[in-house]
């Protein structure tokens, strides 16, 4: 363990150790220790890698020392190595997530196992060993699933002196921020969060209790988002213009979460512009069985979404997630590619699977459009496409490259805070120590500088704000003097 120490390292110090997601986006996993208690935050995989290479650096700590593991939301980069941790390692702690996260997690990881197995078979001729890339199988999933405990928003658990409360994080259905209290010290972990009310989710909440250490995402660094309405208009007009010219639109999406927001936008637009769009002659397809299976989860948890969508649900007595203009494609082989269409397909970063196959099929034609709406992780095809390459490599035949003439556009519906939203939240939380996670090195570095200059007038005062951007497996050790003990006694 390297030491990025700012005070004396004793067992009384608060310690932060990132196993993944530090100076990177992917494999989110952080360990915090204070007064002999250990909490792990998230257990993700890195979407640009496969198998063991995608794991957080679990060998760097003794997993048996973890008391509690909290999962912020169901995205693969936050939750997909959980079955591995629970089944394949000496981890013995208790695991918590919200109800909707658990409900979706179940289907999602089943699909993750299936997809990984499929791509193993497809690539079996180039594998050098007979092992596969699956980190766990269906049995591991089932066995671990029952041991996952759930927590309600705004409720507090106390597990042998570790108190934690879940707050709304926006971002996706079920996403939570956790405020953890150990011996009077309060730590807030944001996970991925958004501060904008969109079509179905609420903005993230600022917890009512003060926070000493804030562990906050930095995905967009110092970038600024356009207003939601502008982005929606751009999205629908790009799609509209493409299909009226006979083009196909590919929207690579992660099957659950932000895709449902896009479907709400598109379904409404298609209803309102039915005349211009040939009265149902331009289909919108959603190639996801997984999403179809999870529809009832979205229906069940409408009470956890924002007022707008709850009102719509109450007034119309219909489930807003049952769309009028969206066709679920059970099997991509049933898809008849005759004319203009809009297709939402997974995976969101085009690494393999249906979205990748469609990309290779459609990208040679100028009139077609690939519209990236999610955050694209370094090392994935989606990220590569942003460079507007002349050719892209074929996934099934490494000797072939496919010419790329189609339009490539990016409009973010990723539901991560931009700089202003992040700064505003950070100021409201008011923590003296800020640890940045979930960001590529450059945007994270810029965010750190921007925060330090924002708080520079507090320098050398009692309220000085310290900002850390550690790399994976570089220890942060923070000293909190006696204050905390007094606080704990006083309350």
């Amino acid at each position, binding site marked *: 363990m*390297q030491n990025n120490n700012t005070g004396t390292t004793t067992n009384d110090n608060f310690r932060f150790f990132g196993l993944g997601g530090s100076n990177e986006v992917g494999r989110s996993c952080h360990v915090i220790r204070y007064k002999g208690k250990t909490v792990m935050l998230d257990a993700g995989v890195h979407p640009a890698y496969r198998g*063991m290479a995608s794991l957080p650096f679990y060998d760097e700590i003794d997993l048996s020392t973890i008391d509690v593991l909290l999962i912020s939301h169901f995205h693969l980069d936050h939750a997909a190595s959980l079955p591995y941790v629970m089944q*394949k390692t000496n981890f013995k702690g208790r695991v918590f997530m919200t109800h909707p996260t658990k409900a979706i997690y179940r289907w999602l990881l089943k699909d993750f196992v299936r997809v990984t197995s499929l791509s193993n078979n497809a690539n079996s001729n180039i594998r050098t*060993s007979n*092992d596969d*890339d699956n980190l766990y199988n269906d049995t591991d999933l089932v066995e671990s699933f029952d041991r996952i405990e759930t927590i309600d928003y705004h409720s507090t658990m106390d597990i042998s002196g570790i108190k934690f409360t879940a707050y709304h994080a926006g971002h996706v259905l079920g996403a939570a921020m956790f405020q953890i209290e150990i011996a009077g010290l309060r730590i807030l972990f944001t996970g991925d969060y958004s501060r904008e009310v969109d079509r179905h989710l609420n903005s993230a909440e600022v917890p009512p209790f003060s926070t000493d250490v804030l562990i906050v995402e930095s995905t967009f660094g110092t970038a600024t988002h356009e207003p939601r309405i502008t982005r929606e208009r751009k999205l629908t007009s790009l799609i509209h213009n493409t299909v009226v010219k006979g083009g196909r639109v590919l929207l690579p999406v992660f099957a659950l979460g932000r895709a449902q927001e896009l479907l709400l936008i598109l379904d409404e637009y298609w209803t309102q512009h039915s005349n211009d769009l040939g009265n149902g002659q331009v289909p919108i397809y959603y190639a996801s069985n997984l999403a179809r299976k999870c529809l009832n989860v979205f229906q069940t948890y409408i009470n956890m979404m924002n007022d707008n969508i709850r009102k719509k649900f109450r007034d119309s007595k219909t489930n807003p997630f049952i769309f009028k203009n969206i066709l679920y494609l059970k099997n991509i082989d049933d898809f008849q590619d005759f004319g203009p269409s809009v297709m939402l397909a997974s995976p969101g970063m085009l690494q393999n699977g249906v979205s990748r196959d469609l990309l290779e099929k459609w990208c040679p034609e100028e009139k077609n459009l690939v519209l990236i709406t999610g955050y694209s992780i370094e090392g994935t095809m989606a990220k590569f496409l942003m460079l507007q390459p002349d050719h892209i490599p074929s996934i099934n035949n490494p000797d072939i490259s496919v010419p790329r003439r189609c339009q490539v556009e990016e409009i973010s519906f990723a539901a991560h805070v931009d700089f202003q939203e992040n700064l505003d939240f950070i100021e409201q939380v008011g923590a003296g120590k800020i640890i940045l996670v979930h960001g590529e090195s450059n945007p994270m570095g810029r965010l750190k500088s921007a925060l330090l200059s924002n708080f520079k007038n507090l320098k050398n005062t009692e309220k000085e704000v310290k900002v850390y951007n550690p790399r994976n497996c570089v220890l942060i050790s923070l000293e909190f003097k006696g204050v905390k003990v007094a606080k704990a006694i006083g309350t």
Partner: protein
Amino acid sequence: MSSTIYYKFYSQKDISRLPFDGTGITVFDLKKDIININALGDGTDFQLKLYNPDGMEEYVDDTQVIPRSSTVIAKRAPATKSIHSNVNTGMRISNATRYVIGKPKIFKKLG
């Protein structure tokens, strides 16, 4: 004759076995095989460290031979950059690429 070496990733519960020919295997070959079998990647962003389970002493010499039927502990760690002022390049990156591209570390280099 086929021999076996046992290895366990530090965080894992189970011990894995690795067959090889001979009475012992070099640290270099063992690392290469473990990286390969577990598809750990091209080696640029991680290091693989091997330890003797008694006392967790690291096997730092690639040429050291580990006798067959031994058990070793493996750790996958991030690649690190460190600054070495006495080396012309200034920056030393510690990662596992040499085990993937197949060139053992030469300890005594001329010049």
